[in-house]
């Protein structure tokens, strides 16, 4: 059997003959437990109201919004990796893009849940959408929240489509290989009857590349708009033009961190060592290092701007560095950039566990950063009289853990039932190598 055939088989057979059934079951049980916690938290929230959280005046945004930004940031890596690298013709991406995109989807889902749950009256969230109604009122299009609503919705739709048309050919091959009837039907339906006609491929390729080309600026715009949520408010520490690029870079950084973790994990669990090779890990490490350094530059730029933006910005800066929430600032610095330095060395980049560790640390670091940006600006904004402190409650944490449960559940289902790696693209690149 040819190399191509092996690759395809290796990938598309995963759902049918799952290599790590036992581990998967344990992990899925864990994920379901967290999912249950999610539903409990949401239930309590709906019955009692947002007061169950630590939010107050002045810090009336707390966990929900900072976690929203965090999740959405993570949800940028997939699209970036697969779209940008596709356009740059980086074939090595083929080993990663499929599950990176899946990760994106599920992260965006978690992100999307938060702004709705954090509402005082969640059951009215659809009032943000423009539709003719009895009150004759429309959304307020000058509000960053309305921008976000459109941005996140668009981003969700586009990344679903991008991911789906990308997976169709593999679904087709899964269909053709499937022995059991139910698998044939399952894959058959979702493959839309793909049969690999050269004409289809031609049109498919144009649309796939076009979508990718559009997705890249989309990613940038989405997180820029998230940053507006802060930057558009007249709050010291938020009202800054650095925010859009700063947020986008941070997003990519956190996203790549999560991708690295998932890569190492899947590679080990599904035994994809010869598909996801050490060089892939190394490249991820490099990506982490680069985006990390850019983010670090963002930090410096922030401080620099603050230093020149007059008294209030300066006070906020001092609050961040030495105030009641200094731990979140220095925590972010430590977790984001200290372990990252290992990535300068090839041998550490190539070391799965080290990469995983760095990824984990960056994920935590970026969470601290989102928290820091939100809380340190709000808790002492303008009037000395309205300074106040924020303390997360049990329900803050439980809901956060719950969303992680949502993510894991979805991702584990994806791993279990769909081709985790773009087989046809891998075989394509192998074929091209074969013909020089």
């Amino acid at each position, binding site marked *: 059997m040819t190399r191509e055939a092996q690759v395809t088989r290796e990938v598309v057979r995963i759902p049918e003959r799952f290599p790590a059934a036992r581990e998967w079951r344990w992990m899925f049980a864990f994920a379901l437990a967290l999912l249950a916690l999610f539903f409990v938290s949401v239930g309590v929230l709906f019955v009692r109201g947002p*007061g169950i959280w630590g*939010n107050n005046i002045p810090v009336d945004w707390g966990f929900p919004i900072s976690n929203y930004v965090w999740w959405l940031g993570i949800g940028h890596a997939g699209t970036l990796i697969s779209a940008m690298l596709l356009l740059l013709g980086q074939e090595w991406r083929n080993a990663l893009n499929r599950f990176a995109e899946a990760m994106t989807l599920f992260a965006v889902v978690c992100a999307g849940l938060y702004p709705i749950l954090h*509402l005082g*009256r969640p059951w009215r969230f659809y009032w943000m959408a423009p539709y003719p109604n009895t009150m004759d009122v429309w959304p307020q299009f000058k*509000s960053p929240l309305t921008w976000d609503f459109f941005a996140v919705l668009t981003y969700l739709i586009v990344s679903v489509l991008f991911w789906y048309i990308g997976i169709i050919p593999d679904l087709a091959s899964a269909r053709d290989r499937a022995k059991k009837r139910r698998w044939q039907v399952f894959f058959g339906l979702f493959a839309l009857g793909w049969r690999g006609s050269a004409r289809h491929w031609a049109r498919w390729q144009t649309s796939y590349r076009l979508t990718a080309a559009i997705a890249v600026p989309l990613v940038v715009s989405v997180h820029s708009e998230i940053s507006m949520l802060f930057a558009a408010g007249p709050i010291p520490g938020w009202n800054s033009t650095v925010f859009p690029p700063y947020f986008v870079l941070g997003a990519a950084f956190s996203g790549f961190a999560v991708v690295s973790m998932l890569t190492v994990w899947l590679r080990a669990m599904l035994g994809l060592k010869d598909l996801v090779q050490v060089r892939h890990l190394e490249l991820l490490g490099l990506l982490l290092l680069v985006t990390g350094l850019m983010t670090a530059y963002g930090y410096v730029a922030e401080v620099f701007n603050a230093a020149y933006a007059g008294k209030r910005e300066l006070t906020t800066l001092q609050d961040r560095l030495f105030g009641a929430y200094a731990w979140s600032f220095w925590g972010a610095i430590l977790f984001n950039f200290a372990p990252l330095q290992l990535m300068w060395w090839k041998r550490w980049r190539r070391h799965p566990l080290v990469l995983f560790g760095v990824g984990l640390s960056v994920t935590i670091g970026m969470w601290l950063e989102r928290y820091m940006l939100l809380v340190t600006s709000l808790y002492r904004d303008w*009037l*000395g009289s309205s300074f106040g402190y924020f303390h997360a409650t049990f329900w803050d944490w439980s809901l956060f853990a719950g969303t992680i449960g949502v993510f894991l559940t979805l991702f584990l289902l994806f791993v279990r039932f769909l081709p985790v790696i773009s087989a046809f693209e891998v075989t394509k690149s192998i074929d091209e190598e074969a013909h020089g």
Partner: protein
Amino acid sequence: MSEGALNDALVAVRSAKGRRYWRSLDELVDRADFRHRLKEEFPALARAASGLNRRDLLKCLGGTIALAGLDGCERAPDEEALPYVVQPEGEVPGEARHYASALELDGVAQPIVGETRAARPIKLEGNAAHPSCSGGSTPFMQAALLELYDPDRSGAPLYMGRPTEWARVDRELAQLRMRLDTTGGEGFRLLTGPVGSPTLLGQIEALVGRWPQARWHSWSPVTDRRAEAIESWLGMPAKRVIHLADAEAVVALDDDLLGAGPEQLWHANGWGERRRAYQAGEGAALLLVAEPSPTITGVTAGDRLPVAEARIGALLSGVAARLEITRSFPLNAEEEAWADRAAEKLRNHAGRSLVSVGAHHAPELHKLAFAINEKLGNLGKTERFLQPADALRPEPLQALVEEMRAGEVATLFVLGGNPVYATAGCTGFAEAFARVPLRFHAGLHADETGSRSHWHLPLAHHLECWSDGRGMEGTVAVTQPLVRPWLAVRSRHRLLADLMEDRRSDRELVRATWSDQHDDTAWEQALLVGHIPKTAPAPVASTPTTSTSFALSASEPERGLRLAVRPDPSVWDGSFASNPWLQELPKPLTKLTWGNAVHVSPALAAERGLANGDLVRVRAGIRSITGPIWVLPGQEADTVLVHLGYGRELGRVSQGVGFNAYPLLGEKGEVFLDVLGGREELATTQHHFEMEEDEYVRFVETAAKALPPEPPKANFYPPLKSEPAWGMAIDLDLCIGCNACITGCVAENNIPMVGKEEVAKGREMHWLRVDRYYEGSPENPTHAFQPVPCMHCEDAPCEMGCPVNAAVHSPDGLNLQVYNRCIGTRTCSSYCPYKVRRFNWFDYTGEDAPEMKAVRNPEVTVRSRGVMEKCTYCIQRISKARIEAKKENRPIRDGEVQTACQSACPTQAIVFGDQSDLDTAVSRRKASGRDYDLLPEANTRPRTTYQARIRKGETSE
């Protein structure tokens, strides 16, 4: 037809139900004499009645006079009470009725105008028609409304703690009466608080007259030794009144003139008037204060000296010595300097100055103060002594306690008040009380005293009974009911009348007190305006009989800590402890809610390593109390301050809130602090008080000075043009931080109270807050208050944030919050530089008791869970005025719209109006050189602006 016949008909109507009721009402309408009565009672309706067909007329009447026939609990205005004003053109009767009446606090009448809707009192304001009130109110007056509706009020008599019938009470009283008749009142003691009501005094007189052996004792939780001073100085009892309106230089020694209490409104009115005159260039308005712990008087003063309570005497003697009245005691440099300044100001303004000493100080000090005022020719001007209106004088509490101990008291009748709780530990009242064989307690609540009495008799609230009282300057105010009692309660007058088998109604009792001076028309006029003219007592010839040699005890500088016990600015002596509006009212200087604290100076805190919330035991003599620390800048180094009124045993609201400081009341000598190690969370609405270099509150040196001109700020957008353009001006120089505005706002706008835990989380709901800042050294900083409502910015950031158009601007320049459109993203609040928005984190209103729902203003939406709310500039009052103006096809007049905070303010610090018209009060205020925007760097074009505070009290400096 005769008056009586008509009354019978009316009674018939009320007693009737359903269709019979309407039929009898129907007949009523055609009666000539009814029409006549109608004209008297509702002129507007009478006018309408001619035009309206009978059907519409019936509709109106159905709502107004006849509710009694419809609902069981008789929540109808008393039939004899008369509307306050001849209702303005075109107002629909039955929509809102206003009654002039009066509350009573520690025997001082607080004149009010009560607004009732659908026969429910829903708002109280000060009655400017009464000579002792020139408008405005106090937190206590505002919150009295909630007291009326308090679900915890006792609604039935208790015998041995079990509910019983009034009939049984009557039988018991009858037996008591027989006993007293036979024994001539042997062993019968009546205990009251300070009594101001002439009618009540008359009744007590009658009681003592009928039973000579009976005794009347009176006590006040708040120590007042001025009365004895006056008596020994004048050789006769007299009532003292001071007129701050005329006092250009006031020297207050440990005397919280402007602070909470029965005299607050009178003094605040006076001070406001004086200060406004000074701003207008008419004379000075100087206030020099020496006090152990900051009060709002001290904070308002231009010259404040923190000094131990024990040094007040020496300081006063120093001032006196400089005015060649008596020799001085040795003073330290600071005290010398202050005494110099005080004496100088007093002399400069002789005849228009005033020295006053805190009522709790020794008589000798008061006498010296009187002497100074006499020497300066202030007597009869800024300080006046009035003839005592009452012949009968109560006996002190201590005498009663002795008798109770000796077992000489067979029956104790406690009429109002809660002596078991609210008496100093050293008096030992509670123990002695338990030894009295038969104990009656009449009060609003079955409180500590009620629960320890054989009989607890529920009292009627002032808003639901007839009575009378004397305002600060002595004029009699008539208390007429705004609503009929819906609980089985009786008034004070009724109880005494029942005891003495007096069958007259309360109204007749009150009327009888004034029958000699007033015929019926005069009486009805008195009811309309709320006071009886020319009833102020005549001034006494103020010639001191005693020599002017003063036996001041030389107070050598003391060692160790000294205790100061004061009534609480929010719950007073504890009588308001069950009132959530007051429990959640931030105390002026600490912004503490729901509890009291052990206040210490920064120096002491540093020395002992104490931080806010640390639990300490305060020991004085054999007694001690335990409470959390609060560090208070500006407090004298060795003074420890505690507030009364907390640590109640009973009451859904008051129970377990704070600690009871009464045990230490009256303790002299050194006190000791033991740190207990524990901590108690204190719920404060402000965590950060230092102003640093921020100019939230701005200052000018004298009234003549203006703020440096602001350079015009760059802005992409033109200013908002609209007519009218509503705006507010708050003069920080007039604000004394009394919190009346907050309580007024709470009452007007149905602000929910959220409780200690929520406040501690930073979720209080007040639409209007009074920020307090200080600058300078913590030993004696300059304090300043700043009321902060919504700024109604023209370029409002909140509106930019809202995704659903719930925060929008109205054509008349209001920043609106549309509750039913709000989905609770809270972006508006995040973007608000002033953080004036409030969010319903939970459903704060749904579970309210029916009484609490009854108190709500029907014109203001009750907000649901998950929506944002904030100050609306009392939009409901604006639209009311707009409607009136439209009807008469004229523009809204200046001053026609008064926001709740504005009408509650006793010093007229807040002015509201149309700033597009340059000839309105608000425009004139904003035109002053002291006008400035809060947070100009935010560049939001706020419609609420402030006038800078003036440091000095006279321009010639």
